């Protein structure tokens, strides 16, 4: 009955002048719009107005001119950014690291979820999940202390273990090669608990009768995993992978900044778009660089999210973000 009334309202409303639609809607639902006002004001102030600040990328920022009336310089900032040689390095690093992160995270989350679901003792299940979830709760600042604890040249545990085996100590903080392994490892370490919860929820949702039927047909547990669980996880996995792909240009700033910081020796191998933007702004106060990097990232992000969402939509309409 409600829908009928609404349809009536809707057609009536449509007949009226469209330009007055919003104002009319507001005046008939004053309280509701008022309840929405705080969040609207927040996002106008903290998101939409800064968004107009993208003009900065085409200006030479001066303190006097500020955000909106500094002198225009056309594409100079972008020229500077692309000619600096940084553009290719940070784009490559951002994409390569995030693809590796996403792949490793997905693999280990599914691995953990599948095997947790195989465990029969309830207390053991709970305990192991709690332990895996623990890293999710701590900040990357804390993680940087952990990493220091393990990898520090003089006192780190890794070198102490190597010493016990009479092997040479590794100078990890000045050799970028190691970080291609360490960063994905830390990423998985931090997120595997979260990911396993996601995939475990999908496994729990699988109809138990399928497994019972398979048992009657003589399938062993390994076959049940490969022939039932994994294929039925595939839709969840594809969606989560695509959504993850959409975030690929925003690359874990916290992690890179905390674990690597401003270590010049590791810069080329570990500088991502976010860290470059941050350093140009807060470190060298290079506003031209910072704003052009920012806009470059925003545009790439938008393109990639739209593409990812388009793919999700093609795969499963209901799961699309918009």
């Amino acid at each position, binding site marked *: 009955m409600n829908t009928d009334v609404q349809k009536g309202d809707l057609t009536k409303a449509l007949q009226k002048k469209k330009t007055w639609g919003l104002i009319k809607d507001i005046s008939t639902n004053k309280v509701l719009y008022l309840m929405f006002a705080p*969040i609207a004001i927040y996002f106008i102030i903290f998101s939409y107005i800064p*968004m107009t600040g993208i003009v900065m990328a085409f200006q030479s920022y001066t303190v006097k001119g500020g955000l909106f009336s500094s002198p225009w310089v056309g594409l100079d900032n972008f020229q500077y950014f692309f000619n600096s040689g940084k553009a290719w390095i940070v784009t490559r690093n951002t994409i390569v690291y995030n693809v590796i992160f996403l792949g490793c995270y997905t693999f280990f989350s599914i691995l953990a979820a599948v095997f947790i679901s195989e465990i029969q003792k309830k207390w053991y299940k709970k305990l192991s999940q709690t332990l895996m979830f623990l890293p999710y709760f701590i900040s990357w*600042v804390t993680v940087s202390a952990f990493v220091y604890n393990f990898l520090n040249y003089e006192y*780190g*545990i890794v070198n102490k273990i190597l010493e016990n085996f009479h092997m040479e100590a590794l100078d990890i903080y000045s050799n970028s090669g190691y970080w291609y392994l360490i960063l994905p490892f830390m990423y998985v370490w931090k997120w595997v608990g979260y990911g396993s919860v996601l995939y475990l929820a999908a496994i729990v949702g699988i109809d138990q009768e399928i497994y019972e039927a398979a048992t009657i047909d003589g399938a062993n547990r390994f076959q049940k995993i490969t022939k039932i669980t994994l294929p039925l996880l595939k839709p969840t996995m594809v969606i989560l992978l695509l959504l993850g792909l959409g975030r690929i240009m925003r690359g874990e700033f916290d992690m890179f900044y905390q674990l690597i910081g401003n270590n010049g020796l590791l810069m080329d191998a570990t500088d991502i778009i976010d860290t470059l933007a941050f350093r140009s702004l807060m470190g060298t106060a290079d506003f031209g660089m910072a704003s052009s990097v*920012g806009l470059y990232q925003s545009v790439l992000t938008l393109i990639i999210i739209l593409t990812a969402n388009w793919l999700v939509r093609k795969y499963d309409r209901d799961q699309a973000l918009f």
Partner: protein
Amino acid sequence: MSSLGVKSKKDSTPVYSTIAYAVVTIIALVCVLPFIVLLAGAFSSESSVLKDGYWFWPREFSLEAFQFIFRFPEDVLSAYRVSILITVIGTVVSLFISTMAAYVLCRKELRYRNALSFFLFFTTLFSGGLAPYYIWLSRYLHLSNTYYVLILGPMFNVMYILILRSFIKGSVPEPLIESGKIDGAGDLRIFLQLVIPLSKPALASIGVFTALAYWNDWWTAMMFTSKDQLIPLQYLLYKMLSAINLSAAMSEHVSSVNTPKETFKLAMTVIATGPIVVVFPFVQRYFVSGITIGAVKG
């Protein structure tokens, strides 16, 4: 292979069980090991660390790093105060306004509710970038070095609002809202007395995620504060771990001779991380249910 197949008819082959237990145990141990090493380091004596490095247990048990920190506790206490303050105020305000907005977005009589959703959602698709944001907040709004920026900066997450929206849609029945209206309740009263009580599970989940984000936020403080009394815990920790080994207040009191530098960092990390690790087992289920409602998009 065939012998395994025969055994499995009872559905309890020891081989697969062993593999499952082994894999899960290894992953769980790897996850928890750094915490153990951290504790071991923090409770070690400085001299044993300098001599033999860190290890999985204290080679020489000592509380000197903690004693050192608590001899001049002003910085740590102030940081705790700031962190607790912004976490509590921020979470309550954020949760209330987010839920209110989510409820509005559910109401079918609003013709523009989808446009409003998109208004929020668009901010996750595109942003002006760091530089304009920083300049706008610091130079135009003068939010640097205020509590406001620490609370407002990380306040809302559009995804949480959309999750709340689908939760309200699914668990507050439309006829209930209608009957409330017939009884003469206004929109605000319906929200306060019907929607909020019925959304408690989602509020708990989104609440713990929001609180965690506040507690772990060091970025806003690094960007916008330089005053000592506005430094939250995580940023204090960051400052102490990075080049600046000692805070101003502490270094005034201490000659560099007997300073436990290495273990000090770890003890500081324990102090900053302790509350989360202690509280965590009690609220874990809210996080788990939060992840699950978020995953099942409505």
